[in-house]
């Protein structure tokens, strides 16, 4: 009976949303257009199509900070060719849908609101955890490879090559930084390269990249470009060397949660099971 109360509540809530909110029009316009119809006219399929009715309420009610963070994570996941063609609103819709599914499943399976809430929370966090993990991996790879990439640009400029040409040449590098630069060059067709780089840096939400693109703008305006580029390369290398040591120190604290989840808890449970089982059996025999 309790389950029915929750189900009725969910249904009423869904009905209120359905009646109160304007449904997504067949031909989307305004802010919603970008979400529902990608620039290349690609038709939504699969999960994204099924979740598209959620996109409008999600884009209206989700806090801007959360959407910005999701957009930055998606940016890096897409640099690694994962979660392609998804945008922040669609991913948040997926999270909301999985949260409702997790809550519903928890209620049906256990009938306890607490477990249902845990199920809902897990459903909400799971896509973000998966996508965030991929984004973190590529972001770190990029940060690690950026200093060497800047050295290459500096080397090219030292051979009397212009900054734009140096960036074009070094974009052929195998590194993630080279791949990022190829993306910037592709997006900068008919636009200013450094301004496009700044836009991409802001999208990427990466301080190192924002700092570099701003400095490149200054260098472009300056007269002694080669020397300034050399100084930038030196300072980026020095920053990286300093921060590498710090990150190595931080690894220990980052490993606490996996150590507890994968080692200490199973370790304790195993010991308790092995030692406690004979006691449980004896108590059952009495």
């Amino acid at each position, binding site marked *: 009976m309790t389950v029915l109360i929750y189900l009725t509540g969910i249904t009423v809530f869904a009905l209120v949303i359905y009646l109160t909110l304007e449904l997504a029009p067949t031909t989307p316009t305004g802010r919603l257009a970008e979400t529902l119809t990608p620039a290349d006219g690609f038709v939504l399929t699969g999960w994204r199509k099924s979740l598209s009715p959620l996109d409008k309420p999600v884009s209206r009610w989700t806090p801007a900070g959360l959407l910005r963070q999701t957009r930055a994570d998606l940016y890096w996941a897409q640099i690694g060719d994962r979660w392609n063609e998804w945008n922040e609103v669609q991913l948040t819709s997926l999270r909301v849908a999985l949260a409702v599914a997790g809550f519903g499943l928890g209620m049906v399976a256990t009938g306890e609101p607490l477990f249902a809430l845990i199920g809902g929370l897990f459903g909400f966090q799971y896509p973000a955890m998966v996508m965030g993990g991929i984004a*973190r*991996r590529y972001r*770190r*790879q990029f940060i*690690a*490879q950026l*200093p*060497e*990439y800047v*050295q*290459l640009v*500096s*080397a*090219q400029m*030292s*051979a009397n090559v212009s900054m734009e040409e140096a960036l074009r*040449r*070094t974009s*052929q*590098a*195998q*590194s993630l930084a080279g791949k990022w630069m190829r993306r910037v060059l592709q997006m900068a067709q008919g636009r200013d390269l450094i301004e496009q780089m700044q836009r991409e840096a802001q999208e990427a939400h990466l301080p190192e990249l924002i700092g570099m693109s701003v400095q490149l703008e200054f260098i472009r305006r300056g007269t002694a470009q080669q020397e300034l580029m*050399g100084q930038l*390369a*030196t300072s980026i*290398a020095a920053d*990286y*060397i300093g921060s*590498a*040591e710090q*990150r*190595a*120190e*931080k*690894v*220990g604290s*980052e*490993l606490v949660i*996996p*150590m507890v*989840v*994968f*080692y*200490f808890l*199973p*370790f304790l*449970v*195993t*010991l308790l*099971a*092995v*030692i406690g*089982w*004979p006691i449980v*059996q004896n108590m059952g025999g009495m």
Partner: protein
Amino acid sequence: MTILIPVVGLLCTTLVLLLWYPKPTRTGKLADLYTVDSARTLSSLNQKSLDYKLLAAGLAMKPVTFRLLCVAAGIGGAVITWLFLPGLPAIVVGGIVFYVPGAWLDDRVKSRGRKIDQLLPIGIGRIAAGLLAGGSVPDVLQQVGESLEIEKTNPLTPEFVLTASEMRIKDRVEALRGLAARSPSVSLANLAQLLEGYTEAGGRAYTGVLMDISMRVQQILIARNRAQAKAGDSLVSAKVLQAVLVLILIYLSQDPMVRASLNAIPVQIVIGVTMAAMVAGYVIIRSMIMEAV
């Protein structure tokens, strides 16, 4: 005990195949891993194929032999564990032993790039010094490769030697781009691009710049290697805990009541899940450490 007979037979067959299976090229120990021939063959293979992984890891065996070895190891591990701890834990151990060679192979392939990164600071220093002294790029690469080989067998030497020989017989820029394309290390690919710039700039006037940039790249690589080594210390506790659990279980199993509980289904499920969790945890923690810096 009779179950051991087919297992021993299977293991013997695998061993015979491993030792006497006809090989396409003559190889001995791990030496072939770091020969120029290997470097050339590697560049023609798909990097995700098992052929590539085996060659890059220095294992002179066919993919079919490797797969057979994995299956035999899995069955062997399960059967041996069954003798001491029958039931689910034995099956989990079998699964883990089947999975471990593949994971080890992937790690060996990745470690080729890491080994190159470890040696690259020394290599860059010698290349910069050689070019500053007036040597040509192919000669310097050849000499640096050979000098590294004197100290110990390494994966950087065949890359340098192959590039040097290619630079002599075909277009220099193309040879350096080939090095960048087949390189398992991003830093080595960057070095190739740096040398390409040096070659295009005409050499001499560029030597001072190359020295400065080489020094900075050298410092970056040294800092990264040092930080990675430091981060790797955290992995020790992950290894130790697994051994501690096994030792405690062995010690506790001396008690007849505990030994009897090891055969109970719920306890076996707990042990099996714990084993799987620890292996998964090890893989996750290791990847976190590798990606940290």
